[in-house]
């Protein structure tokens, strides 16, 4: 039956600038200062190499479970590159490259992945949240942080990261709706890596894109090739400028792929084919970006190798520092720290009780071995 069509002003667009064959769409090429391009490249390489190194540390039992990022470097760096120190980064748990860009130390990540609370270290001069494990829950915090920035007349923005799976959570919905209603300066970065552990995007939602979910909130949304750092950079630049200038929030869907396992505890062979992974390996954001830089004459084979070996040295040094530091860590009584601003009496008692127990058991131990 014929009806009136409702025209929805916000439209959803797709942006790709540097395609998977490294073909550049000249008229869309953002002008990014050369030094920034090279910083981004170094950061991508660092993210990639650190990820690889963490994986073999984990396989050697030198760290615990962690979530690899391989393949998602462009989505993380093209977005985070626009933040100022005073801006807020509100991560999920798979943003290692972005965290490093923000100044988190390599060793802190190793220490954290070894089960030490000390591994959470937020650079003093950065307004960043610690990683958030409950999927989607951090999205709403970004709204409060952004609201506060606006209330305090600062032009800081908050950028929050989450995955395709997170878009199914109620907190995603409530957070984006609040953000649009209160017009807060928040950039919602969805790293659509096609998988939520074993659940493919097609089972996660029936909507054609994740970007179009922005229409439900009267919020601008855009889908970008998340393995094309130029497209990610351009889209994020626009969103960050909009937010900073009081234009409100934006949803950016970065279409990318998780090339590795969900975490080191996961076995992707159970649920996806090698073919699929190979297809996506061809779209590797790093190779593509390097081709661009080579074509631009900003990079050469040996310069690239120099950067790579610098990065590898940096990683090795960090591992050495981390393993050194960890020898000094782990006094269990510190688990009572940071519970409250002031320790309540019953906790003081429990802490004393623990200290006593701990002494006794150390004594027992020595008894046994002495």
């Amino acid at each position: 039956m014929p009806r009136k069509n409702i025209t929805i002003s916000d439209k959803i667009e797709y942006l790709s600038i540097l395609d998977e064959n490294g073909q550049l769409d000249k008229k869309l090429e953002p002008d990014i200062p050369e030094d920034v391009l090279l910083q981004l490249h170094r950061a991508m390489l660092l993210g990639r190499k650190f990820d690889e190194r963490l994986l073999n540390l984990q396989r050697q039992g030198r760290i615990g479970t962690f979530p690899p990022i391989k393949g998602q470097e462009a989505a993380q760096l093209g977005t985070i590159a626009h933040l100022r120190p005073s801006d807020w980064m509100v991560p999920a748990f798979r943003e290692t490259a972005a965290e490093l860009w923000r100044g988190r130390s390599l060793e802190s990540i190793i220490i954290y992945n070894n089960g030490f609370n000390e591994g959470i270290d937020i650079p003093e001069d950065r307004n960043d949240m610690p990683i958030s494990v409950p999927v989607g829950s951090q999205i709403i915090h970004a709204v409060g942080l952004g609201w506060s920035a606006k209330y305090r007349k600062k032009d800081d923005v908050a950028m929050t990261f989450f995955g395709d799976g997170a878009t199914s959570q109620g907190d995603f919905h409530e957070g984006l709706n609040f953000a649009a209603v209160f017009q807060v300066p928040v950039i919602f970065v969805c790293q659509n890596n096609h998988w939520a552990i074993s659940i493919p995007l097609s089972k996660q939602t029936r909507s054609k894109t994740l970007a179009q979910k922005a229409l439900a909130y009267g919020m601008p949304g855009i889908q970008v090739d998340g393995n094309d750092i130029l497209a990610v950079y351009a889209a994020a630049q626009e969103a960050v400028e909009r937010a900073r200038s009081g234009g409100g929030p934006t949803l950016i869907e970065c279409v990318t792929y998780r090339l590795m396992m969900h975490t080191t505890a996961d076995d992707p062979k159970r649920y996806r084919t090698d073919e699929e992974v190979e297809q996506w390996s061809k779209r590797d954001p790093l190779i593509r970006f390097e081709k661009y830089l080579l074509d631009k004459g900003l990079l050469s084979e040996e310069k690239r190798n120099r950067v790579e070996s610098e990065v590898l040295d940096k990683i090795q040094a960090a591992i050495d520092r981390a393993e050194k530091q960890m020898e000094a860590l782990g006094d269990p009584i510190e688990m009572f720290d940071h519970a409250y601003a002031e320790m309540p009496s019953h906790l003081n008692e429990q802490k004393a009780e623990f200290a006593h127990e701990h002494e006794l058991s150390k004594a027992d131990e020595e008894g046994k071995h002495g």
Partner: protein
Amino acid sequence: MAKMTMVQALNLALRQEMEKDDRVIALGEDVGLDGGVFRVTDGLIDQFGDQRVLDTPLAESAIAGMSIGMAVYGLKPVCEIQFSGFSYQNFHQIENHAARLRWRSRGRYHVPMVLRTPYGGGVRALEHHSESREAYWAHTPGLKMVIPSGPRNARALLVSAIRDPDPVIFYEPKALYRAFREEVPEAEETLPIGEPQRVKEGQDLTLIAYGAMMRPTLEAAQQLKDKDGMAAEVIDLLTISPLDEEILVQSAKKTGRVVVVHEAPRSFGPGAEVVSRLMEKAFYYLEAPIERVTGYDIVIPLFSREKAYLPGTERILRAARKVLAH
């Protein structure tokens, strides 16, 4: 000093703290123009404007989660969840984050937010509008759980909660919102969080309660004096968690006989912790088993039967006489 209802006293606390400190932000469903469905935030939006008093969309998880973000970035949000029966919609935000961010960030951040919500029966309300589930929050490390029992301590505790550097779940006994008035000084008044109060001295037995249960408990104490010539010591917990048992223990050691009262379901309820603390620290002084006078382990019935569900003076009296009889 003006005689105020609890609603007016809470409103005074909010207004004065908002005047003193522009980091204090009130937010929630209907807290603005409507002044809150119980009018606790009445008039605040007129005085402070819609950047200090936020009418939010209908989503409890976002109300709590947004408050967390505000608190981390230097504000002191006081969010209202319209009824405690709807605070489970945001339980994960509080347990996963509000209660943990100080710990997770190793002190870099903290969450000085207050979650205000009316709880308890006695106002002939609909389903989900009469629950008492303070134990959920009390069992959650990192939180503070406060429940006032009258206009004056409600005002003083809310001021303390707003100034507290850690997240405070503030349950307001809706049955007492307008039940009676008390003198509430215009001048600032606070009460320390984490300190139960001895509201009545006595040596024959100890009655421990809080919130809306204080009135039947005090009434029972009166009747024990009048009819049985027994002097009950009455303690108002005020803070459920962190629970400071010191004065409970002192009192139990003195009287040897204890009754604990709450409207929450009995099993795994707040009374069990009180019993356990006294077991641990006053066992050898107890003359009789501690009695729990509580709601039953069922959903609180719709209002035609809620009076039968809620502990009243008679049940408290009988329990008291029972422990005295031992």
